[in-house]
């Protein structure tokens, strides 16, 4: 399996990466390598192997519905590059 330049650009768009035209070629090659590497798994015969939805042999890990204190507003916003009115400030998005 190989990846097209269009697919690479589309993935870049979905992940909000701005790539220059010449950078895309490099990503196509890298992604191709990764996909081919993962593809080797298809060589295995899995006819009698049960589908695995989760790798851990655990189920129903839950906690009780009991309120614990949240962070202080200072702690919440401590790493925010920008803030206003006790909120995280991000580039403008349309309503």
């Amino acid at each position: 399996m190989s990846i097209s330049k269009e697919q690479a650009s589309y993935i870049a768009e979905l992940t909000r990466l701005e790539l220059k035209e010449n950078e895309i070629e490099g990503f196509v090659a890298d992604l191709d390598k990764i996909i081919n590497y993962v593809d080797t798994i298809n060589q295995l015969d899995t006819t009698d192997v049960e589908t695995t939805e989760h790798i851990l042999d655990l189920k129903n890990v839950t906690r009780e519905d009991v309120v614990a204190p949240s962070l202080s507003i200072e702690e919440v916003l401590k790493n925010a590059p920008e803030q206003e009115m006790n909120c995280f400030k991000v580039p403008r998005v349309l309503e």
Partner: protein
Amino acid sequence: MDYEIVIGMEIHVEMATKTKLFCNCTTEFGGNENTHACPICLAMPGTLPVLNEKVLDFAIKAGLALNCEIQHYSKFDRKNYFYPDLPKAYQTSQFYYPICKDGYVEIEAGGKKKKIGITRIHIEEDAGKLLHESVDGTLLDANRCGVPLVEIVSEPDIRSAEEAQVFAEKVRNILEYTGVSDCKMEEGSLRFDVNLSIREKGAEAFGTRTEMKNLNSFRALGRAVQYESKRQVIDIKKGREIIQETRKWDDVKGVSSAMRSKEEAHDYRYFPEPDLVPIILSEERIEEARRTLPELPEAKQARYVRDYGLPQYDAEVLTASKATSQFFEKTVALYDEPKQISNWIMVEIPPFLKEKEISIEEIPFQPEDLVELLTLIQKGKISGKIGKKVLSLMFEESAGSPSQIVEENQWAQMSDAGELSDIIAKIIDENQKSLDDIAKGNKKAYGYLTGQVMKATKGQANPQLANQLIREMVEKKLNSRD
């Protein structure tokens, strides 16, 4: 050419848990911005989600109440999208294995009963709130990030704005009774997405659909469906192609408009959530939930008609909200006059709720007090008319019991035959003309005498007793004349 509207709905419901889906932050509504947030719901690196046990109870209950098959195996997936309302850049949801499938809700619209299929119900987290109050940016309040939701997805079985509204109201009603959600529309506890398309009547294939998201009232839902279906029919008639798109409903202007395609360029790339393990539900747990499911509105209505002899209409009004049915049931348990109680709850009480802008949960008196009032009327201590005046005062703050209100205002009826007889004797003596009229067969004169008695007693004479005494004394007088 006749056209048919085809609608499928998605209903997002905030569950009534105390804490969020994956952390112990409170879900309380209305806190100051970003005061209900912690490293987990803020998506700090290295944090791990732990599922809220209560969420499973609620999701199972919602599924059972909406006639779904509860799945023995379900799990979570990541729905990836970049939007600042979710700090993780993905929403934890259930895509491949939802917790409930294949249910239905029976509705009645346009005089016809029909079933609306429920495709699935899944658990997911709510997103934060974006504020557009800054001049040069967008602000995020993360309090709602991670609040647990159930999303109820219907089959495309809905055919009109009325059906959409009735379906939404019915789902709300059922969820309120099960306690899965507080269902407060004004707090956004319930939000509707509508997928709508048009096709020729009788056609099998669906038309191209548009989606309208986050309608937050039944009225907005109805209006949005009416507008959008008309718009699509006009476009189809003019030969214009319907574009599959997300449209924004503007409830103030009453129009829907296309969102820019880039905003809705969604490719969610769902994949299994590695941080959460599968949910395995035993048959015992599901059956236990079925046994403890509270009585749902339809069953209640049938019981009110059967056991209390109420008309179907009364039963429907009394079960329209959980609080109303609770008030009725508590009252009727103390005072065995169901129809009378129903009349007071349906007719007399609502105007005061409207005037005071309160809901039935906020009535400042107890079912016991209403029973006391009804007993005063039944025993003839006060008239029905005075009863309504007492009720109005019961809505005032620091009002006493109905008996105290009657006493303070000296509203008790004169039900003492001796005292009343003296007054009546005096009035008959003063009104010989009425006596003559009655002797001539003019029964209307009785009414005049009654009026005089009521006037003399400032309306406090027990009317039945007064009438009885007047008749007795007039007959006696006339007999003695002969």
